[in-house]
């Protein structure tokens, strides 16, 4: 029983990270109908940027204000890169066939990933221990401070995003643009600004996810973007791509599933089982758990 609750905690932690990253995928897909393959690499980049800020800007300080500063600066930097990415790789292809945008995204992904490698080298780097390695035990289950932080902050951010999307004008505009970009434009919504907004939000959330990955796993490599990115993307698809609560749900489910497989079956089969879960879900419910069917007028 201990294993169950331990894996539950681990799963929620990982799930929270997946959810944060998945939100970036799902927001971009919702409005632009584009799989932003480069998102995972930006998440990886965030970890390296965070490392760089820690080393060169913060002078390796680990105080609370320093940590907060690292988070904020990284988020801003990654959001900035997100805007550049959109302008350079996606905007020129707004009216091109979908496949072109997919390949452009893959190209951007290769650029970012290999850019990281060229700057920081191909070997694994160690992310600084910004959070003290404290942990507490609750009836046989160990929960670390980092895990509390990840789960708590992720929850906060997700709630904030949910409120933003549901309760604000900009949020309504985003939802409108997700349903029908042209109609939204005709209603006076500045779609370019909406797209900029979703890239900023998605990239920032992803950046936080990347920093969490650094804090939790400590070892970061230039190509980890595809690994985590793929998982997060799977989470977004499972929840129904384009659906924001779906991405959160998908992330949590995926994290839990991954943890339980690793705990009960075998960690060397975790990827395989996760994808088999995805395949089953898509066969049974092709548009994802919370996804909606869209009818085509003939």
């Amino acid at each position: 029983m201990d294993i169950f609750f331990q894996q539950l905690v681990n799963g929620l932690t990982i799930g929270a990270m997946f959810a944060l990253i998945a939100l970036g995928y799902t927001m971009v897909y919702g409005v632009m109908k584009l799989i932003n393959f480069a998102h995972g690499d930006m998440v990886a980049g965030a970890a390296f940027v965070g490392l760089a800020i820690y080393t060169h800007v913060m002078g390796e300080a680990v105080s609370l204000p320093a940590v907060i500063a690292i988070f904020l600066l990284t988020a801003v930097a990654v959001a900035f890169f997100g805007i550049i990415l959109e302008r350079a790789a996606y905007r020129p292809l707004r009216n091109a066939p979908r496949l072109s945008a997919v390949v452009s995204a893959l190209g951007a992904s290769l650029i970012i990933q290999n850019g990281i490698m060229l700057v920081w080298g191909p070997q694994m780097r160690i992310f600084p221990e910004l959070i003290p390695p404290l942990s507490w035990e609750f009836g046989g289950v160990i929960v670390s401070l980092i895990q509390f932080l990840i789960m708590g902050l992720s929850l906060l951010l997700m709630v904030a995003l949910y409120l933003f999307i549901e309760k604000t004008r900009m949020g309504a505009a985003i939802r409108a643009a997700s349903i029908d970009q042209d109609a939204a434009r005709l209603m006076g919504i500045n779609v370019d600004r909406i797209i900029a907004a979703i890239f900023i939000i998605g990239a920032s959330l992803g950046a936080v996810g990347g920093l969490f990955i650094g804090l939790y796993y400590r070892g970061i490599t230039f190509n980890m973007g595809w690994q985590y990115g793929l998982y997060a993307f799977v989470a977004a698809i499972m929840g129904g791509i384009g659906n924001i609560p779906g991405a959160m749900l998908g992330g949590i489910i995926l994290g839990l599933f991954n943890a339980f497989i690793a705990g009960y079956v075998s960690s060397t089969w975790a990827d395989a089982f996760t994808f088999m879960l995805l395949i089953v879900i898509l066969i049974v419910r092709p548009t994802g758990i919370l996804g909606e069917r869209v009818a085509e007028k003939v």
Partner: protein
Amino acid sequence: MKHSDYYGYALFFLALVILPFFLDSRWQAVATTFIIFTIVALSQDVVLGKSGMFNMGQALFFGLGAYTSAICNTKFGIPLLATVPLAIIIPALFGIILAGPIIHLRGDYLLVVTIGFNIVFVQALQNNLLGLTGGPNGIFGIDMLQIPGIDSGRQSVVYYICLAALVMVLIILKNLETSKAGRALHYFREDPLAAESIGINTRAYKIFAFAFGAGIAGLAGTLYANQYSAVSPEAFDFVQSVLFFSIVIVGGSSVPGIVLGVFVMFVLPEIFRDFATWRYFIFGFAMIFTMILRPCGIWPATYGKVPAYILKGKQHGKK
């Protein structure tokens, strides 16, 4: 085919035939790999270029063929040449089995599911499935493909075997293009609803396309096993699938486009070894620029291949 096409193919073939005489053993190996990957890319084109299905898991079938040959040869002692039919049929069967439940999915979902299949496959290989696949190190010590009377261990012979396979694949693809089945693929790519309404069983033909591409990729797998005498999981992971996918889209859904794509992706880095670490970085830019400037690929597919007797409007005797 137009006359200019004939000359183009003849020249290309001639160049490939005389190539080994100008190359040393190491570069012959590069050329051999070039041909093997061209075959895989051509198989990817059947599913992606002709049929318009977002398949990003073709390395799975490539690997299935390679591992089938490897296992049959090392575990059951079957000579490599005899494993070829199995290396084609087993991937083709998997193509049918895997495509069946997922073929109706929308493009982006299909993409992720094919990546998923690829990842499951590679992880199964790494876990030494059924004790057959050899774990993360793969299988080595595969015999060479033996042709009686010829010293089949020489690199140039291996090269010519692959070249012969390429020619055969090109002929088969030509047959596909001038057949009812091949045309059906193009039709449902252009407009699935219109294709259904004109009488095409799109579901059946989509599965056909997957199986067709899988079989060809499987053949390339045997050639790969022959060339390297070993197979390992990383050679067939989804990163490879992404490359094959990109080659077809960036190069264009045509034989010249694909050959060009394979050359740029696999041969150029061998020529410019010094730039190897910059390889993918530069490719990324190339991919983006190509999509912006030439969305249909560098050398897109062409249509309007209509038999000459239709065009000339001549009277032909009714039989």
